[in-house]
């Protein structure tokens, strides 16, 4: 074994920096929220207890994904300088995340609809601060 190998540390420490892909789109959250909406619809139309249990389970899963996607936008995409263009940004994300919690706990279509509306507001904020041109790869066939 070479002397250098002997000297080499066995522990690696990271001087950590992010490597974000830079791809963001509220559509991801919106699709999961639409799933929640549709699941609530189906839940209300079906009396079968097994079906209803499954529906609730899946709704909670999807709602968790909504939260995740909202958080990624909030923490990673939006930067302090965006607050000038969207002064109510933090309130908006707070409200949207709270609404997800509500959708998790309820089977009301109104709640699910309200979540969609809030995500549309996030979408508007995303568009004001750069939107598709900045955060999606261009060239997808229309």
């Amino acid at each position, binding site marked *: 074994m070479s002397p250098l190998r002997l000297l*080499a540390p066995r*522990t690696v*420490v*990271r001087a*950590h*920096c992010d490597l974000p892909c830079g791809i963001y789109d509220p559509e991801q959250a919106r699709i999961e929220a639409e799933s929640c909406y549709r699941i609530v619809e189906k839940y209300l139309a079906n009396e079968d207890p097994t079906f209803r249990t499954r529906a609730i389970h899946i709704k909670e899963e999807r709602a968790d994904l909504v939260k995740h996607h909202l958080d990624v936008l909030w923490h990673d995409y939006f930067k302090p300088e965006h607050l000038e263009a969207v002064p109510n940004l933090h309130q908006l994300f707070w409200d949207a995340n709270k609404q997800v919690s509500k959708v998790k706990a309820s089977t009301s279509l109104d709640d699910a609809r309200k979540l969609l509306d809030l995500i549309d507001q996030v979408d508007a904020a995303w568009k004001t601060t750069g939107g598709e041109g900045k955060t999606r790869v261009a060239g997808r066939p229309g």
Partner: protein
Amino acid sequence: MTVTGPRRVRGALRPGAGGPLGLRGLRGRLKGPWRVAVAEASMTPSILAGDWLLVDPSVGRWPRRGSVVVFREPGSGVLVIKRVAGRPGDWVPFSDAWLRLADDEAWLMSDADDEALEADGHGRAVDSRAYGPVPVEALVGRAWFRYWPVRRVGRLPKPPVPAFRRGPGPAPRD
């Protein structure tokens, strides 16, 4: 800050409060790591990816501002390296407000600035600005000497890092 005798003893008795041995106990501390290799670029230019450092794992409390420390990143638990920018009791700017660090917390920052990192194709540095204050249980050791590469062998520079000044109004943005 000088550490007086009684404080030191009190600290040692409180589990995890950063007494001389902390939570890991003497044996845990002496196990190391004594040597580490650095990956990634957030400590540029003082410490580069690929540097080999000597670590003193016997520290049980946050060393003074400007020291380079190895610790477990909150959340992920990965071993990371950063510089102490705030010690217990210091005020630090956090998200447009000021935050006072608790008895066992430190504020750990990267050396590299975000623009330079992004220009080099890295992402933003991940440090206390992202995960907040770090409790002393996460402290693993103090890096103090670079022994590789040869042309940069020597003690790690420890620039004087002034405490954040808590002024009126919102914190300065970097």
